[in-house]
Structure formats: structure tokens, C-alpha cells
């Protein structure tokens, strides 16, 4: 329509420059327009009696418009554009030959659609005006004579690398445009979007023709699975999974450890969204290395099931973490907490109980000297524990130096602290005025009366429902029920307002409103918790012997306290593109940065030869970093040694799942990516069903060898229609005002 009215396409009009083709001077046109306006004004002034001033103005504008159009047409307006010189330019046609182009059944694959499109339609038309160079690409591009014969599908799609390869090769040729025929399922480790600027620098427009369906309702894809690289045995771990889907409903996901199912959970899929993110809880298996498999059940009609599965490595350490519990008075919470953790394979509870004013009773100690004075002798001894519980004991019992050590235990060592309520606990114990105050997730009240032996029922908060610390059952509904049916705790202590970063996981009803019972916040490298009760022992005494809610609660909470406490030698790895980045952080017994050590990591994977990586110091004291290319996909075992001189100071190990890109994932056409690529380079996105205008767009490409082309516009129907409209409008106006 646009082209029928204006004689040129909208795109061409936007690219071109309007010019006057007549040899007559443009100034004369301007003079005549002004003169015409003056003359019209004089003529209309004489009709003042017949028409109102506004009516005269309208008539004058319409007549001037008509006269102006006629005058402009006399000067012959035209459109000046640059267009490719026929026969002198090269157009590269790149056909995606990766495996995802074979997605579909029988003859309806993307390749089956693309091949005739190119061989029968596009390349013959392009060849009439330009030289056409054909390429196939998957991992990389390679020139071909024609698209009739295709190689085996490629195992990866690297659009960015392939485009750059073609553009670099064409530096010495007049490359006018690139036509990219692809589904956009780029799975290069360096994302295509990161290469846009580099590609656009060549100044060659990329025209992308998108292949394949943008939505595949029958297909589910497990986009990602995110979980920590290590966890304690017997704990519950929450893996964050992301599922791509094109419809609502539900999908069941299973977690396997070898042939053993660890968990099966139904994920509701939101109808209005293409991606659902959810947490899948599963019990951490026994100590050792585990290659976990997460898999979505097949949907009815689903063809590609390979994108339903992902693997992740999980290291379950054999070490026992040491949790120190300082208690100021014999009480039932102490007893039952100890009993709950007694047989925990991961947590060793070491406790100091002040039984009489001058005597401490120790349990769980490793040697008679441990905690002989009722408190760790120095910073190194305190920091040797992984977590800390402080019960009903007054802050004044600890010297300012000891309080500072407790604060640094959380902030610098990265341990977690749990404070319990009690007669001498929390605010009543003066902790609100101690060095530990800033560590705690709430501002403590100093009112001793805030501690009441009054039974209250704990309830999960929304965050508590999602917390793996509070899973009495893997099933969410069952977990809710179990928490609802738990007996009341024996006591409660009011805490002050929560700090900004604090969250409440459990609350209770007091005076008609919900108040926090279990709160936590991050502090420095660690976390702090407050449990505003010393009476969870009622869960054990009031429930049948077979019920393990009390044990489960304390085991999970205790493991949560110790599981994330950093070791002195902390090794972490992250996949970054085609590299794996290693970071080693070393601290001494006091958890002060160690800067005089060298770290070497040895990476092994399957049958591959071991790889040695020497980590280099960074700007941060005690932090060393290095990178390596993993090569084959699989589980990487990384063992690092820290040395000072010839002696080994510390060692650390971890495992990491490295997945090479696979064509089974990202099978939907990525139209957004292709559109962005085309837009960034000055090209356009096209569908295989509608390529009208592609040849014209290429003809007027900004790259290549071009020549000037001036197209007359004066003969465009739009001008004559405009004249007609102006005259008709004047006639209608005069009829309405009854002047004719």
C-alpha cells in the first residue's frame, strides 16, 4: 500500500534523501510560495463580509496547500538513494546446519524447510543481481558450492564465531549483506549477544531468517539446576530448577542418585509465563561424591526428551562439623537439644554448661584441656568450631575481649551464631548492650520480664515455608500439617524490632498479633539467628516416641548453622564460557588472610590427562585465582594444595559438573536473539513465510559497492490524491457555509 502510494518502499524512503529534480532554483519555489500566500490573503480579505475570519483562514489554508503542492510538483521532487551496483557485490548466505535444525519429525524439520527455500527461491533471485557465497555453519562456518548436499548435523551452534569468521574472510571482497538462515539456538559458551558490537563493527547488515517454531507446547526443557557444590549428609537440600514451557499445567521432576530416587515433586507450571522457577527439596545422600540427575517426566507428544534432564555434582563430606553450645543454667532445652544431635553423623555438639556458680560441665569435648575454663582460650580455639549456640547466660559472664571474639566468629570467621531465649538469655541477659548486639538479627529489649513461661505455638512464615531448615517433610502440604500439629513450645521471650536485613522464619501469636520466633540475618561472612524460646523440648516430650519432629528440627537447624562455615582453605570454581575459573581463599587459624602461600590445583576428569593449574595472587589478600579450559564434558575433580616453601599448609578439593553445550537444549526458535542481531547490524529479521522486501533491502544495503539512484516522486499517486482531497475539502466547506 505504502509503495503503491509513494512509488517507493517505506524502508527506501527512510534511507533515501529527498531532492528536487528540476533545474529551476529552489529559491524561486520559495518566492512563489510566499507570493501565492500573499495573493491569496488579499483575495480572501475582500470576502470578509461573506465569511467569518476563521472560515476565511480555513479556506485560505486549503487553497494555499493546493497551490503549494502544484508548485512543488513543478519542481519535480525525487528520492536519492544508494543501491548496490549490480554484479559487483557479494551476498553471503549462511545456513545453520547444527543438530537443532533437524528438530521435528520426518519432512517437517527446519532444515527440510530451509533447504528448498534457499536452493529454489532465494539464491536464484540473489544470483541475478549479486555474487552469492554459500556457507554452512554449526561450530564454525565453511563455504559450500550449493545447499543441495548437507553434512551430518553439527553438535553445537556458534552463530557469533561463524559470522565473524565469514566477515573476516570477506574483508577483501565487496560483501554487501549476510543472510543468516537459522533457528537462533545459539549455544556457544560466549553468548552471541556479547559479540554484537564486534559483528556490527564490520558494517555489514545481517538479515536473519528465523526457522522453526517459537513455541512448542508439547516440549518441556530443564533450563537450569542450581545447587551448592557440597552439603551435609542427612540434610535436606533445595535445588533451584528452571523449566521452559509453552503452556500451563504441571510437570513432575525426579532427582536420582544413580538408580535411587531421592525425590519426586510436582511443579505447577504458570500458564502466563514461559519459564517456571521452583525449588526441589531432596535428602542429601551419604558421604561421598554424587552425580545427581534431575529429570522431568515426558509430556504427552513430547519428541525431544533429552532436554528434560540435567546432571549436577554434589560433594557430601565425611567430616563432622563442631558446634559449640554455651549454656548458663541446667535446663531441659539443653538436655533435649543434646539428645536430638547425639547421633547426627555430621554435627558434633560440644557443650559447656554452668551447673553451679563456679563449675562448668563439659560434654562432647575431645580432650580434657578443651574448654577447661568454660570458654575457648583464644581466638584460634573459638574459630576452630563451625557454629555457635549461646543459651541462657548473661553477657556480663564474658569479658569485652571474649564478646569481641564472639562477634568476629560470625563477622570474620564466617560461622553462624544461634542465640536462645532464657531467664538470662537475649535481652534479659544484657546481650543488647554487648559487642554482639550488632551481629544479632533483632534489637533486643533489656526487660527481664520479656521472658515468660507461657506456652505458644510456632507457625511457619512464608519464608519459613521455603526454608530447608524447617522441612519436617519433603512434601510442602505435609510439612504445613506437621508444623500446625506441633505442640506449643514451653516459653517465649519478646525480642525487639528486626534489623533491616533480618527475616522471620517462624512466628507465634502474642496479644493478637504475630511476633517472630526464629529470625536470621547475614552478618559479615556468617549468619546470626535468634530462637526466642528455650522450650522446644516440649515437642519431644509431648509427641509420641516415634515422632522425630524435634530431632529433625534441631538437626536441620544445627546443620544450617555449620554447613556454610568457610574452611580455612576455601576453594571455589565457576564455569565462565569455555573456561573454569578457580578461586582459592586462605586464612590462618585466626582466620586472617594468608598471603605468603602458593596454590596449585590438579584437575582430573574421567580418562583425560590430569591438568595442573597454578593459581596467581589477586588484589585481595589471601585470595588466589586461576583459569583452565576443561575440555571434555563430565565431572571435574579439583584438588588444590597450598604450600609455603616446601611444606604443605592446607589442601582442599571439590567436584564440578561441566556440561558441554548440546543441541538438545534451546530448541525453540530464538527470534529475539535473531532480531537483535539483525537490528544491531542494520539488517532485518524475516520469517521464512514472508521474504517480500528482502531483495530490495539488500539492493539498498549500506555496505558493498554502491551507485547513486534518483527516483522521481512527482508522479506518485499520493500527490494527486492530496490535490483531490484539498480541493474536495474546500468544496465541502463552502457547501456547509452556503457560499456556493
Amino acid at each position, binding site marked *: 500500500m505504502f509503495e503503491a502510494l509513494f512509488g517507493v518502499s517505506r524502508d527506501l524512503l527512510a534511507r533515501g534523501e529527498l531532492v528536487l529534480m528540476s533545474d529551476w532554483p529552489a529559491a524561486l519555489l520559495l518566492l512563489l510560495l510566499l507570493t501565492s500566500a500573499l495573493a491569496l490573503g488579499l483575495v480572501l480579505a475582500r470576502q470578509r463580509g461573506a465569511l467569518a475570519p476563521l472560515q476565511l483562514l480555513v479556506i485560505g489554508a486549503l487553497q494555499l496547500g493546493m497551490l503549494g503542492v502544484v508548485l512543488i510538483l513543478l519542481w519535480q521532487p525525487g528520492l536519492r538513494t544508494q543501491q548496490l551496483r549490480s554484479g559487483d557485490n557479494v551476498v553471503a548466505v549462511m545456513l545453520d546446519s547444527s543438530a537443532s535444525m533437524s528438530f521435528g519429525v520426518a519432512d517437517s524439520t527446519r532444515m527440510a524447510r530451509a533447504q528448498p527455500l534457499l536452493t529454489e527461491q532465494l539464491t536464484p533471485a540473489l544470483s541475478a543481481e549479486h555474487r552469492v557465497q554459500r556457507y554452512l555453519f554449526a561450530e564454525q562456518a565453511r563455504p559450500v558450492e550449493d545447499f543441495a548436499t548437507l553434512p551430518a548435523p553439527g553438535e553445537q551452534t556458534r552463530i557469533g564465531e561463524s559470522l565473524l569468521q565469514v566477515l573476516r574472510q570477506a574483508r577483501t571482497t565487496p560483501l554487501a549483506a549476510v543472510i543468516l538462515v537459522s533457528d537462533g539456538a545459539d549455544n556457544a559458551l560466549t553468548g552471541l549477544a556479547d559479540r554484537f558490537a564486534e559483528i556490527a563493527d564490520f558494517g555489514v547488515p545481517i538479515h536473519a531468517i528465523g526457522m522453526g517454531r517459537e513455541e512448542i507446547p508439547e516440549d518441556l526443557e530443564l533450563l537450569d539446576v542450581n545447587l551448592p557444590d557440597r552439603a551435609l549428609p542427612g540434610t535436606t537440600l533445595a535445588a533451584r530448577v528452571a523449566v521452559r514451557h509453552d503452556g500451563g499445567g504441571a510437570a513432575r521432576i525426579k532427582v536420582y542418585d544413580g538408580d535411587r530416587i531421592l525425590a519426586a515433586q510436582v511443579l505447577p507450571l504458570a500458564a502466563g509465563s514461559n519459564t517456571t522457577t521452583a525449588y526441589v527439596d531432596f535428602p542429601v545422600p551419604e558421604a561421598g561424591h554424587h552425580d545427581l540427575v534431575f529429570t522431568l517426566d515426558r509430556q504427552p507428544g513430547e519428541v525431544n526428551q533429552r532436554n528434560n534432564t540435567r546432571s549436577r555434582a554434589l560433594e557430601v563430606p565425611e567430616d563432622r562439623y563442631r558446634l559449640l553450645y554455651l549454656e*548458663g*543454667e*541446667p*535446663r*531441659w532445652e*539443653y*538436655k*533435649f537439644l*543434646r*539428645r536430638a544431635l*547425639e*547421633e547426627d553423623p555430621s554435627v558434633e555438639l560440644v557443650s559447656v*554448661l*554452668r*551447673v*553451679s*556458680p563456679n*563449675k562448668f*560441665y563439659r*560434654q562432647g569435648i575431645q580432650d580434657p584441656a578443651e574448654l577447661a575454663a568454660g570458654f575457648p582460650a583464644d581466638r584460634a580455639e573459638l574459630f576452630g568450631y563451625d557454629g555457635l549456640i549461646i543459651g541462657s547466660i548473661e553477657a556480663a559472664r564474658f569479658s569485652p575481649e571474649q564478646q569481641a571474639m564472639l562477634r568476629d566468629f560470625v563477622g570474620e570467621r564466617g560461622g553462624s551464631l544461634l542465640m536462645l531465649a532464657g*531467664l538470662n538469655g537475649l535481652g534479659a541477659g544484657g546481650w543488647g548492650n554487648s559487642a554482639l548486639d550488632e551481629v544479632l538479627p533483632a534489637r533486643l529489649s533489656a526487660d527481664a520480664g520479656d521472658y515468660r*513461661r507461657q*506456652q505458644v505455638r510456632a507457625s511457619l512464615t512464608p519464608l519459613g515455608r521455603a526454608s530447608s531448615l524447617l522441612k519436617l517433610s519433603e512434601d510442602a502440604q505435609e510439612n504445613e500439617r506437621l508444623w500446625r500439629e506441633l505442640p506449643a513450645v*514451653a516459653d517465649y521471650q519478646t525480642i525487639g524490632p528486626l534489623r533491616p536485613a533480618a527475616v522471620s522464619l517462624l512466628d507465634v501469636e502474642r496479644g493478637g498479633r504475630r511476633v517472630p520466633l526464629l529470625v536470621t540475618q547475614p552478618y559479615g561472612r556468617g549468619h546470626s539467628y535468634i530462637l526466642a524460646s528455650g522450650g522446644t*523440648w*516440649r515437642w*519431644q*516430650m*509431648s*509427641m*509420641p*516416641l516415634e515422632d522425630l519432629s524435634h530431632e529433625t528440627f534441631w538437626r536441620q537447624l544445627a546443620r544450617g548453622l555449620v554447613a556454610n562455615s568457610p574452611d580455612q582453605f576455601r576453594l571455589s570454581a565457576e564455569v565462565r564460557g569455555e573456561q573454569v575459573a578457580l578461586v582459592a581463599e586462605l586464612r590462618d587459624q585466626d582466620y586472617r588472610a594468608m598471603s605468603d602461600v602458593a596454590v596449585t590445583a590438579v584437575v582430573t576428569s574421567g580418562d583425560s590427562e590430569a591438568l595442573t593449574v597454578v593459581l596467581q595472587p589477586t588484589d585481595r589478600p589471601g585470595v588466589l585465582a586461576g583459569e583452565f579450559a576443561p575440555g571434555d564434558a563430565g565431572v571435574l575433580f579439583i584438588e588444590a594444595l597450598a604450600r609455603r616453601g616446601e611444606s604443605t599448609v592446607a589442601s582442599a578439593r571439590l567436584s564440578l559438573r561441566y556440561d558441554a553445550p548440546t543441541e538438545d537444549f534451546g530448541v525453540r526458535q530464538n527470534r529475539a536473539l535473531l532480531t537483535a542481531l539483525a537490528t544491531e547490524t542494520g539488517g532485518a529479521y524475516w520469517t521464512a513465510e514472508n521474504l517480500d522486501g528482502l531483495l530490495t533491502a539488500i539492493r539498498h544495503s549500506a555496505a558493498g559497492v554502491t551507485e547513486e539512484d534518483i527516483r522521481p516522486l512527482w508522479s506518485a499517486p499520493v500527490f494527486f490524491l492530496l490535490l483531490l482531497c484539498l480541493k474536495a475539502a474546500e468544496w465541502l466547506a463552502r457547501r456547509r457555509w452556503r457560499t456556493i
Partner: protein
Amino acid sequence: MWKRPVLVLAGAVSSLLAAGFLSSVAGQSTESAARRGPEAEFHFVRLAYSANGRHRMGQSWRTDWPEAEHHFLRGVKRLTRIDAAQEGRYLAVMDADLFDYPWLYAVEVGGWYLDEEEAARLREYLLRGGFLMVDDFHGTHEWEGFLLTLQRVFPNRPIIDIPESDEALHVLYDLEKRVQIPSPFVYLRGGRTFERDGITPHWRGVYDDKGRLMVAINFNMDMGDAWEHADWPEYPEFFTALAYRFGINYIIYAMTH
């Protein structure tokens, strides 16, 4: 010469009067005593049981009440950091609030009786983590009476002598010296420390599957009397002190294991 028998007689009369007074208290529902709920961390709770016919009195569970608790709890508060209630309480096994009090004390258990339902409930209480201290029974006849009911509670669990190394004997005080703690009514009659044929004292126990003491059995001893009569000048302080120490050790053990 007359002084000691007179004192003994006066003590016995006063005990009987106290028992008579208290029988009216005990006549109330045992629930009413506990319905207030725990008001301190530790309540010394006496087990109110039925008699098995072997004992001379029908309410022998009340022996030494309330002076034994009154005296002993002051010692507990003075010598430890335990937030203990000032006075004792008593509960029947079937009391709804039983599980809110993880410490039980039963006296004169040679004549105690628990039916199957009560025995099952006490078993559940102990296995969940409750603790029972039994005291003041003597000789073969009362041991057999005690066993009749205890074996209903734990049919297959052995009763063993508490070993020297057990934490119950060291948790606060090191109680290596095994001295028979007599009732003053016996001891002040001629220095005898045993009753009936219970010549040898035994500190016995029933343990759970994880080796934790659940039932502390003071056989051929009367710690309750030693607590109750702590204010008798004639009764040697040594016995009272030892009874306090055993009692405190048991309580701290019960609150730590």
C-alpha cells in the same frame, strides 16, 4: 537416755500429723496441682501412685511430703544454677500434664502399683526423655514389690548397678563413697543404717538403648528422709549432705543426658 527416743517419737508424730494434713491436700485432684503449668524450669514432681497391698498405708507415695521437697529444693537453688520451683508438686501417671515435667520422684516404691495403662504411659514418658528417681524401699520383700510394677513398665530391660564411671555420679559431685543413707527414725534408734533385711545399699538403674540412665533406683536407702529431716540436729549432717549431693547429681544428670 530418754532424749533420743522422745525425739524419735516426736518426729514420728509430727510426720503423721503432717501426713494427715496433707491427705486433705492430696485428696484434691492431682491435676489441679499441675494445671498452673510449669512456673520454673525445674519442678520436683512426686509420682502419685496406687498401692499394691504390700505396704502398710494406702498413700505411701506421700511419705516425707512436703518437707523433703521443701528442704531439698532450697539446697538445689543454693548449690546449682537451676531455676527450681520453691515447692514440690505431685502428679498421677495419667495426669494430662505429666509430659510437661520431665522429672519424677517416687518414694516407698516397694508398695507401688501401676496398671498396664499406667505402666505403658510411664514407659513412654521415660523413653521420650523423662527421668524417674525412686527411693526409700528396703529389703527383699519390698524389692520384689518394686519389681512387680517396674517389670510392667520395662518387661525386658535389665536393672543394673550404676557403675562408678557413670556420669550420674560425677556430673557435679564426684560420689565415689557409697554410704548407706538411713532414715533418722532408724539411725537414731541405735545407729543402724538399714531397715528390714536391706543391709547393703544399692545404687541401681534402668538404662535406655543409648546407655542413658532413665530410672535411678536408691535401694535400701532413704534419701527422702535425709532431705526431710535436714533440720534435725541429731541426724548427722553427713547423711543429709550426701543425700543432697546424690539428689542434685541425679537432677543435673536428668537435665543433661
